Structures are given as C-alpha cells and as structure tokens.
C-alpha cells in the first residue's frame, strides 16, 4: 500500500468521523467437529448514524453507512489506553460482551499506516479498534454509505 493509497482511504473515512455507532453486527463461525467445537469471529460490521440538527430539540438521526471488517484476512483487537480488551480469537462470549459496548460510541478518527495498511479506528472514550491486514490485496475492511456506495 502506497502513501497515496493511505491518503485516499483516510480522506474517504473522514465522512464517517463524528458519526455514531447505532448497531454492531458480529458474525461468529461455530464449527462442530469430533469432540471439538471451535468458534471464531468471522466478520464485524459497525452501522453508523449521523445526528441531524433539529431546532425543535428532539434528537433526529439518519443512517449514514457502515464499516465492515473481514476478520478472516486481518487481525482485530479492541483496546483502550494500550490495554487489550478483546482480540479476535478470544472466546466468543468475551468478544460479544465487549463489542456491544461500541453501541453509541462516535468514530473520532481513522489512522492508517503504510505499507501494511494497519488501521486504527479511534472511537469515543479512548476505545481503539485495531486492524492488522494479513493480505496485500486490501479488502480487510471497507466503508460504505447507507445507499451502498
């Protein structure tokens, strides 16, 4: 990933800055094997909404878009102040318990580093969703508007 790619991704992500997570969708793959039932996070989607100005004082929002992370091709951790709250291969119970805390948190900024494309999604309250891509082809995460663009 070149610095131009990084700059371009970062600029696109700015549309989502200050938007709030209103829904967290976690896909867990559970496999049944002989005497063994592993579960792993498969993907994570954060749905964002934007607060609309409303002179009547009643809070109004519009759905803005989503961040989708493919955990099959990247490592993922939720951290706060350098402490790891969860990592993607932790137990499903622990992962689900922590990820639901993201509801209501606003995205503060997105930091992307070349050449690997390591990405920090910095949220409110010092929460950081840290993504470590394991492929050169991109696609570990993507953002899309509510219209699907």
């Amino acid at each position, binding site marked *: 990933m070149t610095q131009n790619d990084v700059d371009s991704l970062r600029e696109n992500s700015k549309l989502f800055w200050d938007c709030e997570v209103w829904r967290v969708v976690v896909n867990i793959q559970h496999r049944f094997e002989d005497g063994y039932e592993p579960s792993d996070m498969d993907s994570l989607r954060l749905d964002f909404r934007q607060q609309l100005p409303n002179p009547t004082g009643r809070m109004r929002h519009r759905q803005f878009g989503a961040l989708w992370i493919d955990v099959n091709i990247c490592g993922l951790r939720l*951290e706060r102040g350098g402490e790891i709250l969860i*990592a993607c291969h932790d137990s499903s119970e622990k992962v689900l318990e922590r990820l639901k805390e993201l509801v209501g948190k606003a995205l503060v900024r997105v930091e992307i580093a070349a050449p*690997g494309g390591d990405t920090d999604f910095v949220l409110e309250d010092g929460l950081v969703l840290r993504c470590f891509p394991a492929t050169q082809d991109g696609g570990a995460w993507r953002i899309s508007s509510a219209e699907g663009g």
Partner: protein
Amino acid sequence: MEMGIRQIDGKTLVSGEISQTAGDSVLTFSDDLVLRTFVVASEEDARWNFRDQDGKYFRLGPERAIPEENPAMPDGQQPK
C-alpha cells in the same frame, strides 16, 4: 506465505522488539527485512518461540552464557 518464507530464508536476524502491552513483535532481519506479528488472542501467553534444529526450545537470556559441563573441544584439547 511461501513467498514470505523465501524472502526470509538465508537472512540474519538483526534485532527483535516485543510490545509489553500487546505482545506484538517486530523482528528485523538483514537487508532491512521486517517480520511483524500481531497478537490475536488476549487469553494466551505464548505467541512464538525459538526452537533449535531438533525442535527443542531455544532459551534466550543470560543462561545461554553459562558454559556447558562437557563442551565439545577440538581433538587433543581439555576444557579449562
């Protein structure tokens, strides 16, 4: 992955750094080749180990400097 292994093959390990909080590591080899690891499980301690050619764990640290009891010596020489 095979391409990555071929890149490392024959290189010299120059340095290693491990993040104390996360356990992520950066292993730097000759020719400025860098191997970075990212920890994906907070519930385990062991991330990676060095092993020798026989598969035995290769311990790093001061104990490596302690001479063995019967070091292999060239023919005709005695250990001091």
